Structures are given as structure tokens and as C-alpha cells.
């Protein structure tokens, strides 16, 4: 039963309506402008007969007394085959379709179906009539891109239902009935479409597991030093210009994962456009298909209405949970969670809630925690493992990590990849600060080895700082060589050239090989007494290792580079022995 109400207050994107009848918290409502346009809204507070709503569109032109239709349904998504490769706004409207229908600008009040009703899907039944199923158990499957997209029993089922009928193999559209279930004389038709409210976590599985497998990003500094695991969570805070978005883009390209969901939340439209225009042409080396065939883009850029920005991260994570339910390993990249937090702050201000730190609402931390907790690796009801990994960027004001969003995020994530302006200023990319970042996960190289190598970075830094005061002359040659070794490690291992075809993505075996080579240099006792000669030697080594990094795996070019490195080292030993 839906009810209706009348607007009593309009203030920014918050509208209050007086409602006769029942009101459900977080239900969808439509504010009707006097020209008939219906603006989608969500109820976020109820006080007696008054419902406060955040409107997902510009509220210009709404009047006191305008009609509000209040529905019973929570803000929900349409889930089913056909989501992959789509570009949606924060409310799951397909944007290219929208452009085709209403033109260049986003007109308020236009809402489109998320799934294409015309497309045929090759359905294969997986159960026979008489089978007993519970929520989220497979009934059949269709092929979506390269994946088996399982058609599941409705997520909202309670208890055991019997399959009364199931469609034979053949072509069906998403809204056609493919099965009928029954329980206690009740029957339920099932199509390929499910609806699920975005604010309620979707997770129907046997058990949630501990993440144990590294998610390979092909970025050395991440996979080796600050790894992320399938089903884990991580955050990338950094000041502007430090390369957050570039890092997200690189990850979305190279990560070894089935499906990437990119949530552009309150960021520049230009960055989404880049992904949008390039992904259909870039090849995914794992599958040979284009990248767009393993990507869903949720796009609510900074000039689009703020309330829809707030819901867009939930839209993205719900899609992620859905494909985890289908059985895939999914990576959600949210850029940027600070914009989402700001949207929360704007709404909280309009609700006149008592503010917390920096005017963010008091529930900021718990909202962040709940969001990241929706990630995870699980064992599905049929025994397959599937995961949702969540990575969020944070844009702290003034680049200061002490602010509430960064701090609230650090408490709940498993890895912290802190970007530093100093490193990006010095063109050391990816600009992840190796001394501030941390990860609780294990990576592609044994932990002891990594922390031994990492110790060079720490010592190198303190020697460098000392050198600033006492000059090179006042530094002992041993210290100086340690400093050079730390710079060497930084230059040839931590830094990676994303513009170079080969170096942009460094697979695991290559990382392990390079790590051994670099370890060899770090362990090597150089018998040099002259600082200029030492510097010169390390310049040469750095250059030669870079050549190695730029050479295709096991090519002649790589062999040449390797020989050059050997020659440099043996030459040194010969002269110094």
C-alpha cells in the first residue's frame, strides 16, 4: 500500500512532506512538480506525520503543497544478466540510453530500466521439477560475456521451496518467467530479474571465510610490499595530484580478477570519460576480450546531484555483492569515499543533526565500517568460493590524514596505501609512501624477505636526513652505500612506469625473479671507498635494472640487460678484490 503526502518544506535537496498513512524509513518517494515531473527521493527521517526526504534531483520549482507519492519499496536495484559493460548513474539509470532518449543534459524525472528487456539470453536449466531450493540456489544459467551467470532462486525466499516447473533450454528475455516455485500451496513465478535494496547487505552463503589469496594487481609495490587479498579491503588516501585516480585506473586494468566495478563518486567527469572511451578498446590480457567486458561503471560525478552521489556507493557495492552471489571474484573501486562522506555531511547539516568533528555526522565512522564490511570472501551454497574486494580512495582535506574520513577508514580496512605528495612531486610513481603504508595481508613474496628489504628503506631515509645536515662529506661510506641501496630498491622495484608497455604490469613470476635479483644487490658487499664511484656504480645498476624492467619477459632484450648487470657486478669485484 502506498500513501500520499504534501510538501511542507523545501530546503536544498531536502524536502519534508506531511503524510497521511504509513511511512517506511528509506522507502522511495516521488515529489511531483506542478508541471508533472516526478522527482525520485528517499525517506531518511520520520517525525510523526512528517517525512524528511533527500531528493535525487535538483529541487528547483518544487512548491509547498505539491503532491508526494510514497511507495513501500526501499531504494532497490535491478539485478540480472546484462549488467556487465554498462554505465549507470548512482540510481542505476543507464547513461548512454539516457543520452539517446533525452539528449546532452540530465533532465530530472527520467528513469530508465537498468536491464535491457529486448535482449535474448541462452538459458540452460540446472534443476528439474520437484527439486527443493532455498534462497540464492541455482535454478539455471545463462552466458553473460565470458561468465556463467547463474539464475538463482529469489534472494528473499524464506525456507524450502519446491520447483514446480522450469523452462526448457532456450532463448528468454530477462523478464520472462523461467521457473515457478511453490510452498504450502503458494506459487511464485521466477524471472531472471531480482530486486534488492541497496542499503541492506546481500550475502546468502554457507560461511564467510578468511581471505587467504593475494589479489594480484601487477604493481610491485602493492603485491610485494603492501598486498591486498581477494575479499579484503584497502584504502588509498592522498592529497590531490598524488595519483589516486591513476592508481585506481591501473588497478582496474591489470588486477587479476573476474569483474571490476568502478564507482566514480563525486569525482571529475573527465576521468570517467577516459575509462568509458578507452576500455572498449583495451584488451584484457587474461581473456583476450576488451576490458569493458569485465567492467561495470557507476558514475555519479561531482556536478550530478549530491543525494544520488550518496546512494551511488551503495549501488556499486550491491552490484558487487550480486556478482559474488553469482560466483565471481569482484573488485569494487570507489573513488572517492570522501565525496560520499561529504554528501552525508551535507544531508546531516540540512537535517540539523548535532555535528561531530569537522561537521561530519556522528555516525560517519559506523557508516564507513558498515560499507567496507560488505566486502569479503565466502563459500556459496553450492560450495564455490567467491569474493568481493573493496578498495576506496580518500581525499583528505589539505592532504592531512588526521581528518575523520581517513581515520574512520583506517580502522576498518586491511591495507593502507598512503599516497604522498612528496613522492609524486619527485615523480616517483606509484606515489605510495613505503614508510607510512601498511598491510595486514600476505603477498607474493615471503614476509621475512619483504621486511628485510623494507628495513633498507627505513635506514636509507634516516641516513638521507642526516646527510642533509652533515653533508655527504660527513657521512661514512658504509652508510652512504646503504642509502644508495635504498634508493636503488626504490628506483627499480617500488617505482613502476605505467606509460611503458612492459613495465606497466609486472606479473607474479617476474616480481619474484626481480625481487631475487634486487635482494642480491642489497646483500652484496661493495668494497668501494670512493663515494663518487659508489654513486656512479649505482647509477649504472639502476639504469641497467630499468632496462631489464622495460624488456619483455624472457626476450633477447632481457638477456642482454641481465648480462650487462652481471658484467657491472663482476667488473666491480675484479677491480676491488
Amino acid at each position, binding site marked *: 500500500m502506498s500513501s500520499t503526502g504534501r510538501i511542507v518544506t*523545501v*530546503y536544498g535537496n531536502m524536502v519534508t512532506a506531511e503524510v497521511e498513512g504509513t511511512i517506511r524509513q528509506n522507502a522511495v518517494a516521488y515529489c511531483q512538480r506542478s508541471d508533472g515531473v516526478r522527482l525520485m527521493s528517499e525517506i531518511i527521517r520520520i517525525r510523526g506525520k512528517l517525512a524528511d526526504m533527500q531528493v535525487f534531483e535538483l*529541487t528547483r520549482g518544487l512548491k*509547498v503543497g505539491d503532491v508526494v507519492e510514497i511507495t513501500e519499496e526501499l531504494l532497490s536495484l535491478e539485478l540480472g544478466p546484462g549488467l556487465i559493460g554498462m554505465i549507470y548513474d548512482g540510481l542505476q539509470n543507464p547513461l548512454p540510453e539516457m543520452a539517446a532518449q533525452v539528449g546532452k543534459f540530465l533532465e530530472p524525472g527520467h528513469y530508465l530500466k537498468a536491464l535491457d528487456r529486448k535482449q535474448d539470453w541462452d538459458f540452460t536449466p540446472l534443476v528439474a521439477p520437484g527439486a527443493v531450493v532455498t534462497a540464492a540456489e541455482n535454478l539455471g544459467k545463462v552466458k553473460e560475456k565470458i561468465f556463467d551467470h547463474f539464475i538463482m532462486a529469489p534472494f528473499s525466499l524464506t525456507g524450502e521451496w519446491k520447483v514446480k516447473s522450469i523452462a526448457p533450454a532456450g532463448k528468454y528475455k530477462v523478464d520472462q518467467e523461467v521457473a515457478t516455485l511453490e510452498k504450502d500451496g503458494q506459487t511464485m513465478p521466477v524471472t531472471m530479474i531480482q530486486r534488492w535494496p541497496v542499503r541492506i547487505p546481500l550475502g546468502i552463503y554457507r560461511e564467510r571465510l578468511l581471505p587467504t589469496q593475494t589479489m594480484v594487481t601487477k604493481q610491485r609495490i602493492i603485491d610485494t610490499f603492501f598486498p591486498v587479498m581477494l575479499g579484503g579491503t584497502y584504502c588509498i588516501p592522498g592529497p590531490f595530484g598524488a595519483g589516486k585516480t591513476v592508481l585506481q585506473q591501473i588497478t582496474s586494468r591489470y588486477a587479476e580478477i573476474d569483474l571490476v566495478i568502478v564507482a566514480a563518486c563525486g569525482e571529475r*567527469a*573527465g576521468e570517467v570519460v*577516459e575509462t568509458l572511451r578507452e576500455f572498449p578498446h583495451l584488451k584484457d590480457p587474461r581473456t583476450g576480450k576488451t576490458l569493458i567486458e569485465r567492467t561495470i561503471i557507476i558514475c555519479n560525478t*561531482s556536478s550530478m546531484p549530491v543525494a544520488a552521489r550518496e546512494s551511488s556507493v551503495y549501488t556499486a557495492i550491491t552490484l558487487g555483492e550480486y556478482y559474488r552471489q553469482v560466483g565471481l571474484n569482484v573488485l569494487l573501486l570507489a573513488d572517492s569515499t570522501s565525496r560520499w562522506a*561529504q554528501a552525508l555531511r*551535507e544531508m546531516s547539516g540540512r537535517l540539523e543533526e548535532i555535528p561531530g568533528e569537522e561537521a561530519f555526522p556522528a555516525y560517519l565512522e559506523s557508516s564507513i565500517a558498515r560499507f567496507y564490511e560488505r566486502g569479503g570472501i565466502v563459500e556459496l551454497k553450492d560450495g564455490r568460493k567467491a569474493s568481493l574486494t573493496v578498495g576506496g580512495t580518500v581525499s583528505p582535506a589539505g592532504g592531512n590524514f588526521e581528518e575523520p574520513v581517513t581515520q574512520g577508514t583506517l580502522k576498518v580496512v586491511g591495507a593502507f596505501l598512503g599516497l604522498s605528495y612528496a613522492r609524486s612531486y619527485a615523480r616517483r610513481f606509484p606515489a605510495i609512501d613505503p614508510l607510512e603504508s601498511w598491510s595486514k595481508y600476505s603477498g607474493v613474496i615471503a614476509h621475512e624477505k619483504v621486511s628485510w628489504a623494507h628495513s633498507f628503506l627505513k635506514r636509507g631515509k634516516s641516513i638521507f636526513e642526516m646527510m642533509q645536515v652533515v653533508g655527504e662529506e660527513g657521512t661514512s661510506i658504509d652508510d652512504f652505500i646503504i642509502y644508495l641501496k635504498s634508493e636503488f630498491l626504490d628506483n627499480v622495484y617500488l617505482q613502476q612506469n605505467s606509460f611503458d608497455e612492459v613495465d606497466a604490469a609486472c606479473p607474479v613470476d617476474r616480481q619474484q625473479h626481480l625481487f631475487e635479483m634486487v635482494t642480491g644487490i642489497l646483500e652484496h658487499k661493495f668494497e668501494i671507498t670512493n663515494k663518487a664511484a659508489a654513486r656512479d656504480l649505482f647509477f649504472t645498476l639502476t639504469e641497467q635494472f630499468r632496462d631489464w624492467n622495460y624488456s619483455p619477459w624472457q626476450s633477447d632484450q632481457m638477456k642482454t640487460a641481465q648480462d650487462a648487470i652481471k658484467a657491472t657486478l663482476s667488473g666491480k669485484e675484479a677491480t676491488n678484490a
Partner: protein
Amino acid sequence: MRKYYNKIDNIAGNVATLKATGVGYEELAVVEGSWGKSLAQVIKVSGDNVSLQVFSGTRGVSTGDRVSFLGASMRFSFSDDLFGRVFSGGGEARDGRGELTDNLIEVGGLAVNPAIRLMPHRMIPTNIPMIDVFNTLVEGQKLPIFSIPGEPYNELLARIALQAEADVIVFGGMGLKYDEYLFFKNRLEEGGAMNRSIMFIHTASDPVVECLQTPDIALTVAEQFAVRGKRVLVLLTDMTNFSNALKEISITMEQIPSNRGYPGDLYSQLASRYEKAVVFEEGGSITLMAVTTMPGDDVTHPVPDNTGYITEGQFYLKGGVIDPFGSLSRLKQQVNGKTRDDHRAIMDGCIQLYAKCRETREKRAMGFEMSDWDNKLLKYGESFEKQIMSFSANIGLFDALQQCWSILAEHFEPRETGIRSNLCDQFWPKK
């Protein structure tokens, strides 16, 4: 039939509240009294209470003044008649040539669908080597000029306006000193660009609310031209004044401030303006350059900080030059691979050497001994600053690249520059 109201209940700051019915959110109203009349905009409706933001301020407004509602939000006339005209921030004629009333369009319209945007891909030549060579401006880019007060940011803006190829120049001045306004007007007239320019001027003595309107009207006009296939250059100065006006209004409305008194939605407010920069498939575009003065040279101040997260880089004006280190054009990669083979190499090479020169200067200042190499760097730095960084350098891209090569050749051997040898073979000046 227009309804009049003759009773205002509250007046505080620039906001007047009265009882009225049937009023739409963001609708325009006219307040008339013995002091004159002013436009006002509805910023809150609650029951029969309507809050109005009075454009010319509430000074002298009486509770007995007459208020009427216009039944529509802010509109502005759009046509080719706009060229050469000067308007106030509120959209009234400032040049005494009469108001325009045809073809009214809604101000502060809707967001562009990201799915139809194109990647910016055309370079905008400015004849300023620090821009063309090192941080190329790209059509459709949004780029602020970060500057401390006192730097020649307005000169830079005026130069870009005159030298950049654009079909239409839309200028929005916020909180300008009157002589700054005259400076821009004179420069555009002298440069013969006035007939393709439209100016919206809010001076420091004009009402604060009009400061908020200025970028909206300017960008709305720009957008209309861009939709019609024109390449539009929008210049805004100074966005810090705009942000301060936002702060003033939000505090009057008793909003809880988030950071140094600025409202929590500062980011969204700035972004919705900057994001008007666009390239359409049919060829029209908006390129947006805006001055952001940084109080106390503090880039972490909320205005430059939020701006940096929104824009595609920044020009950092420091010591009278565009600082090569703080400045960044995020879109330069889109175009500088297509200009000339040596462009990227010169861009990286010259800056790396100049960075080393700066390090050497620090070393010298601390009293360390100078080697031959150090002396070379110092001399190179001087030439580079004089011939390339200086504001007086006014040469096209290819000439600027040539100039860079000859500075390099004057001070270094090819292998010392770190530039790939095949490029040196091709471009190194023959003696």
C-alpha cells in the same frame, strides 16, 4: 496575475523572510521599496514561510516593502547580441546599452551526461612557453591559476584570453576592484577581442549575492554557445571571492560550517561550476580558467584545496612566473605526443635539469663547494629563467622548443641532458 505581498517578517544578512503561498523553490522575486528595487531568489520554503536571498542586499529594506514573485527561476537572455556587452553579476546591463529580453534561458542548468562527453584532445596554443611546452592547455580543460595576492594573475588571464584561439570569450569577474575591471575591458578592446567577448562583472562594492550569480550566468551563456558548436573560453576571477560569498550566505542561513567557516558543500558548489568545462561530440567546447588566490600562500586552505581535487591540474603563479614544479596540466598527455617528437623529451629534460639547478642553489646557499657541473647547472638555470620562464617570453610552441634546444646546447653536452640520443642527433643545434 501577479500577487503582491506587503509584509516582510524577518530581515537578517541578505536574507528576508515573509509569508507567501504557491512559491516554488529557487523562484525569483522582486523586492521594491523606497530605496529602489532588487531581484531576490527563494532559498527555502517551509509551510507559508518563504526565505528570500535579496540580490542587492537588504540594506534599507523595510518590513513594509512590496514583494512579488515572478513564477520562474533566474533567466538570462541569450543571443549573438551579447557580444561586446558588459553586464553586472546579477545580469543587468552595465554598459548603458539597454537590457536584453529575448530568448530567455534558465541560469545554472542541468549537468551534462558523462556518457556523451569526449576526451579533450586539442591543444590550445597560448604563446606562453611555460604553458605550451611544459603544461599544455587543452581544449575542454578546467584549470585554475593558484596565486598569492599581488602576483600578475590578471595579466596572465588577459594574455591567455587574447592569445588563445577561441570563438567566444566569456569573462566573469567576482569581487574585482574597479580598476581591475577597467584593465580587463581595456585589454580586450586593445587586443580587438571585445567583439567576441561577453563580460559579467561583479565589483567589490556590488552586493555579495550577485557575486554568487556571476559564474552561473557566465557559464550558462558559455554552455549555450558550446551546444551550438562554438569553442568557448571562460575566464573567472577570483573564485576565492566567490567562495567567501558562499561562506557569508551560509553563515547567515545558520548552516553549520565545516572548515574555517566554509560550508560543508563547498566542494559540490565549486565542482558544479568547474564541471561545466566540456567537449561535445559536435565540436563545441568550454575551456575554463579561473583564478584562485591563496590566502597566505597556503595551498591547504579550503578553497585551493577543494579546487585542486576538482580541476585538471593548476598553474601555480609564484614570484611573477608560472612555477614549473607546483604547476600541472593533467591533460597535457592527451596532446603533447602529437605536436613534435621532441616535445615530451624537452618538457622532462629541461625541468629535470632546472630542478637540479635549484638543488645546487640550495647547496650553494649552505656554503658547499661548487663543482664544474654545479656551475654549468647554475648558468643553465639563469638562461632558462630569462628566456623561457619569464613572463615576457612570447613565442609559439615550435620556437619555444627550438629556444630550449639552444639553451641546452649553450651549456651542456648532449649526453649530459639525459635526453634520448636519437632526439639529440636530430634536434641538437649545429655549431
